[in-house]
């Protein structure tokens, strides 16, 4: 087995505040070129800052560059290799897209500049909307939501608004249909978004096959209070809900609407369209399927795509074409309103459009095929070694558990940490919650055969270690500059900011 990684000397680095030295400067401004106004004429003293920004660091430019360069080297990242976080679609973030987003005509454009002088930006948004509509099969699009959860909130609020419009708001303030059905396997943002939108959440069970339990669904629907269903498809165990048409039918029959969490669209683009399945509204994660960089936690972009029926309820403003110009349309009286100032994370729209145009229609499908194939490769490679809780062939991600290893006291967390020693970023762990010790592996299309094989080999090797030398796994990682951190202690007595007197070493 070729070793994927080896420890190498890496710089340590304190906090910026600890590096700071009085008098250092990392900036220079042009000299003030207007006649100076006396301070008190600018602003009365009692409204002025009086702490001289004490504590804010003072550093030279070199300090800044070294500080952030050093700490950056402690991060794993996509450019170093496979990043198989299930549900996260960590695919290659193209440099070309970064360049596009930095074209001055976009980067320097103020969101409130006159629309006639911002036509290029509106064109970008409009074109992206068109393509997303084609990809999802859902014609109504808003690019305003800033991330997946934000898109969920928008989408379920649209369901709320649609139902209210259709059914009327009965019984004073409390609307009639108030239940949002969510599978037990769903991502935490789904119930959180539903709750934020005023729904009460009921959980649908999954079958032993890892699919939505249709019987349970029907049962829940029979109560007559169902507003809708939030479903991820392929679901969070990586399996396509093959009864999707039926599911949608049941919900529709019960008077509800179907929200699809599009986090897993990387399994479907160019192959099948949510609109064709009966879905009413979906959000996409441009920062997953369409490769806009995750940036260590964000930004994302979570466009909402919906049927023509739901279109009037999308957030304002909408980007519309009027002849050969583009405009913002605010006149949507049924709209849920605004979910964010301005028009969404435009910089991400640019990148996603660049992704779609660079791939081309055939490339989009090719990426889907390659992503699913890679997941299958892993599923196949590990089938004999790890417990696969569900039999169905996985789509773009595959779920295993630590069932076999945990008998020896080695758990998912340990396996994940040991993968670090083998040079990999671990998979998503303990999600979805419905299986114990979940390990959700999503290689994406951005990994070549050799590295997939290395991953399979590493996982097998860890399984062997779990049997033969469990301590190696339990004490992992051993090759990182810092070991497992005591997260429980951190949460018990949280230190969330630096202070001059802060205790910075262990007791």
């Amino acid at each position: 087995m070729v070793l994927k990684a080896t420890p190498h000397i890496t710089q340590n680095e304190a906090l910026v505040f600890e590096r700071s030295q009085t008098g250092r400067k990392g900036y220079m401004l042009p000299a003030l070129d207007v006649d100076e106004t006396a301070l008190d004429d600018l602003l009365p003293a009692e409204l002025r800052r009086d702490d001289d920004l004490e504590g804010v660091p003072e550093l030279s430019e070199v300090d800044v560059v070294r500080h952030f360069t050093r700490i950056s080297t402690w991060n794993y990242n996509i450019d170093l290799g496979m990043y198989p976080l299930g549900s996260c679609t960590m695919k290659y973030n193209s440099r070309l897209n970064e360049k596009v987003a930095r074209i001055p005509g976009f980067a320097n454009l103020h969101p409130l500049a006159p629309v006639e002088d911002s036509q290029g930006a509106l064109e970008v948004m409009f074109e992206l909307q068109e393509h997303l509509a084609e990809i999802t099969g859902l014609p109504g699009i808003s690019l305003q939501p800033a991330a997946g959860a934000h898109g969920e909130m928008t989408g379920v609020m649209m369901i709320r608004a649609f139902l209210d419009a259709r059914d009327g708001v009965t019984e004073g303030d409390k609307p009639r249909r108030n239940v949002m059905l969510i599978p037990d396997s769903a991502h935490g943002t789904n119930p959180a978004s539903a709750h934020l939108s005023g729904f009460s959440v009921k959980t649908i069970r999954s079958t032993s096959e890892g699919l939505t339990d249709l019987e349970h669904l029907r049962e829940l629907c029979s109560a007559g209070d169902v507003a809708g269903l939030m479903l991820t498809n392929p679901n969070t165990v990586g399996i396509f809900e093959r009864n999707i048409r039926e599911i949608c039918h049941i919900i529709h029959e019960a008077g509800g609407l179907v929200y699809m969490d599009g986090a897993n669209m990387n399994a479907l683009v160019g192959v099948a369209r949510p609109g064709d399945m009966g879905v009413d509204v979906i959000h996409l994660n441009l920062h997953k399927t369409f490769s806009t960089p995750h940036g260590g936690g964000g930004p994302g972009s979570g466009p909402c795509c919906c049927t023509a029926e739901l279109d009037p309820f999308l957030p304002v403003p909408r980007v519309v074409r009027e002849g050969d110009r583009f405009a913002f349309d605010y006149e949507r009286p049924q709209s849920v309103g605004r979910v964010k100032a301005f028009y969404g994370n435009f910089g991400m729209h640019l990148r996603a459009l660049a992704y779609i145009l660079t791939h081309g229609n055939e490339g989009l499908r090719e990426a889907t095929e390659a992503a699913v194939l890679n997941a299958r490769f892993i599923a196949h490679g590990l089938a004999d070694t790890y417990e696969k809780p569900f039999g169905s062939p996985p789509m773009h991600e595959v779920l295993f558990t630590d069932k076999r290893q945990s008998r020896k006291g080695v758990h998912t967390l340990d396996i994940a940490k040991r993968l670090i020693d083998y040079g990999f970023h671990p998979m998503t762990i303990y999600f979805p919650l419905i299986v114990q010790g979940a390990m959700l592996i999503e290689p994406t299309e951005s990994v070549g055969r050799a590295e997939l094989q290395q991953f399979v080999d590493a996982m097998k090797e860890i399984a062997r270690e779990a049997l033969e030398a469990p301590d190696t796994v339990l004490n992992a990682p051993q090759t990182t500059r810092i070991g497992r951190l005591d997260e429980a202690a951190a949460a018990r007595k949280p230190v969330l900011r630096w202070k001059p007197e802060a205790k910075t070493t262990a007791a």
Partner: protein
Amino acid sequence: MRYIPNSPEERQEMLSALGHASVDELFDSIPADIILREPLKTPAALSEVELLERFEAMAAKNTAARRPNFIGAGAYTHYAPTVIDSLLQRSEFFTAYTPYQPEISQGTLQAIFEFQTLVCQLTGMDVANASMYDGSTAMAEAVLMAERVTRRKRVLVSGAVHPEYLHVAETYVAHAGVELVRADFDEATGRTVLAEGALDKTIAAVVVQSPNFFGCVEDLKALADAVHAEGALLVVVVTEGASFGFLRSPGACGADIVVAEGQSFGVPASFGGPYVGLFATREQYARQIPGRLAGIAFDKEGRRGFVLTLATREQHIRREKATSNICTNEGLIALAATIYMTTMGRRGLQEVAAQCAQKAAYARREIAALEGFTLPHSAPTFNEFVVRAPAEAEGLLRRLASEHNVTGGLSLSRYFPGRPNDFLVCVTETNKRAEIDALVNGLREVHSS
């Protein structure tokens, strides 16, 4: 497709090894009737050259991006030191995920911890989170948090907060059982006023922006005293982060929650996003904060590191009972802001703020001296102020753009149909005196011709 490592031949080999005759078999679990039988009707692939040409052509149509600009109103043109983008573009930062595996994510985690600290320092608060989507959603989350903290259902919002922020808050609270009540606005001073009786024990919080949407600096201290007297919280919104370098911090004035837009900290205008929401509060409310938090942790050998902490507030643990539904935040933009604050540093943040204030004061003076133009509000301002024109502002600004190549400000009629002649002018350290003079002369000429 050049981003896919495995070649078609390799993929064919892999397929065969897995026992598949064709790639279509991979999708066997999808019912045949919903399988797409035709290629998507999106365009065919473009090469790099062609792609860049297309985007350059679209960018060229954004003529506003090439003009001196005096619009602020939630997005501000500040100088961003070159090092910021150069560091952001390290793949170690921009291609990393949320730091769920601390051993190989310490770079991101330490940067978040530094961001949180800087936000606390600037706002004058105790704890800050790892970011919200932007200022507007941060304000909406603050409203929801105030309800959680106080268990009261009514929130008084100043009529001088950014209209789009208000609109967002209305959407967020629509189904949360929270009622937003508009606080009064004094046209003469340009400040928020709490009308007699507006405040009582049903009020969870009062939300004010300072400098407010009209550029006026609010008397936060007085507001805080009034608000606290009723056991409510004071939520302070800041859209122009540069003001922190000059104005008394909201924390020092008594704010309980401070939310801000961080775009001023080295983030490009980029037609409205991605930006970054700042969210800070007092120590005692730490467990009610929405979003991620990084904190210090130690390993077995006592080495200091950082982890995401207090996760039980969050959706992935608490699901519908979470403090917010937010998951992905604005990590990279928070990093940009962190690098900005660090590079400008203690002195630079103050110098930028001082230059903004000075240049705005100059522009204010010069415009006020123009015949026919007045300044309707009397309260002190930072770098943004309302001008009342002798004619409809919209048309005036349009002519200013086309005839003088200056984006002269934002017509208030966009949000306030009742104020057709008013427009909002923002001046930052990037506006050269020559640009300000061009604006002033342009106003004079456009008006007099």
